[in-house]
């Protein structure tokens, strides 16, 4: 068991030595893999940031009900009760016309303008949170409420959230397709690297076969190489994405200052990072495995 572990460590060490033996080629390979992987990973980071942004804006749609200006207070309360008991409605918020005016004055700095008004032009309003989220149900609820008396305007404000959702869905597919294509590229790069290695180590393979090496012994160093190269490529991708995120966040800070809000790119979580490294190492191993199965059987000592 222990000696097995030591044997694996030895192979690992020998593999690292082999990587260092051709530093320029190894560096180039690892960089190419890193860049290839950083594209889908970068896309993933962007998506995650968009989602966080969307979350802050409440992606569940709301319906705003504006009451007619001449509605009496008891009538307003009765409508509130009716809304609360409605089967399709999760919960409601009431915004009185005076609250709305105050809010407007604070939020927009229009105090001077609104202060000049001698009459509050805003209506009382209910903000309705529906139970269901799909477009059909929302629209039928809106149509139903439209027929109620005293409601001047019924407004479904889900368009923006829906657009964001659609954008995120589109982005997710883009990332998935990009990841699939570039994973294939990673496998292909490793396949070719290992093919060249097998060619240059042909003599060594022949001799070890003559001495009694079985296939798994001959395979092992190549599989390790693919694994390690993939792992280092993953680390390179991680560094590229992390450094880019850091730089872009510095630029975003300036931007955010101008608009007095806080926006920033999400960073890779620990789980994300380990997934990235595990996946890239696995793909490297897979490329090596394909290459070895393709080329090794052709080398038989004569």
């Amino acid at each position, binding site marked *: 068991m222990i*000696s097995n572990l030591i*044997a694996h460590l030895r192979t690992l060490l020998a593999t690292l030595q082999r990587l260092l033996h051709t530093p320029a080629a190894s560096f180039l390979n690892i960089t190419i893999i890193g860049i290839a992987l950083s594209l889908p990973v970068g896309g993933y980071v962007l998506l995650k940031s968009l989602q966080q942004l969307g979350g802050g804006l409440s992606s569940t749609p709301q319906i705003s009900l504006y009451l007619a200006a001449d509605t009496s207070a008891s009538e307003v309360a009765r409508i509130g009760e009716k809304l609360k008991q409605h089967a399709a409605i999760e919960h409601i918020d009431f915004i009185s016309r005076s609250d709305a005016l105050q809010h407007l004055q604070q939020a927009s700095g229009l105090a001077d303008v609104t202060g000049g008004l001698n009459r509050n032009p805003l209506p009382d309003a209910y903000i309705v949170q529906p139970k269901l989220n799909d477009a059909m149900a929302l629209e039928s609820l809106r149509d139903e409420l439209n027929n109620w008396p005293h409601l001047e305007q019924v407004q479904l404000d889900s368009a923006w959230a829906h657009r964001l959702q659609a954008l995120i869905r589109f982005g997710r597919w883009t990332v998935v397709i990009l990841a699939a294509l570039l994973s294939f590229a990673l496998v292909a790069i490793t396949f070719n690297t290992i093919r060249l290695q097998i060619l240059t180590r042909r*003599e060594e393979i022949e001799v070890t*076969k*003559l001495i*009694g*090496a*079985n*296939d798994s012994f001959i395979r092992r160093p190549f599989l390790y190489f693919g694994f390690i190269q993939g792992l280092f490529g993953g680390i390179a991708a991680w560094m590229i994405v992390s450094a880019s995120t850091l730089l872009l966040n510095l630029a975003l800070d300036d931007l955010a200052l101008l608009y007095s809000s806080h926006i920033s790119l999400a960073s890779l979580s620990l789980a994300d990072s380990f997934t990235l490294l595990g996946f890239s190492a696995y793909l490297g191993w897979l490329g090596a495995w394909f290459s070895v199965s393709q080329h090794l059987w052709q080398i038989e000592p004569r």
Partner: protein
Amino acid sequence: MIQFNQVYKRYPGGHEALRDLSFEITEGEMVYLTGHSGAGKSTLLKLIAAIERPTSGSVLVKGQNIRSIKREAIPALRRNIGLIFQDHKLLFDRSAFDNVMLPLQIGGFDHRESAKRARAALDKVGLLAREKANPISLSGGEQQRLCIARAIVNRPAILLADEPTGNLDSDYANEIMHIFKSFHQVGVTLILSTHDERVMQQFPSRALHLQQGELQGAAR
């Protein structure tokens, strides 16, 4: 231990390298394989190590038929055979010591135990002082001895040597024959191909004489 029955070997291209060979070598025997260049000596040794397969007839090595042996069973067979090649087949990307370590790594032995064994094998062939040297810096005789060290480090039951004294002067040749003799004395089955008359006179033993792929005389 090794048994040939009506063995033919025809190479792709039609050349018949071995014709109707039948003989037996018992455990612990030392046998010379003689014949001119092209007589089929190397081919015969390759059949025993399953590097080539017979075209017809059967080659039995420790009870296994080389003609029908499964690919997966070949490594285990070869670990029981020490091979000493005409062209040494040493690896020049590593030290003499690492060359001798290779069979032990293949066998999956413990590293410290292996290192001890490798040094013992190097000592046996008188190369312990050169363990760190790259084989390319060794003389022809030293390379031959290094190849022997690699072949015996696994303590195989059978040792096959293809013209081990081929291009060595007689002092070197004697030295190497003494090494082989010592293995024979501890029970290793030895097959040496050679056309070195002096060696055979000095270390007499049974000889199989090949002529154009056929066994001559009543050497069986």
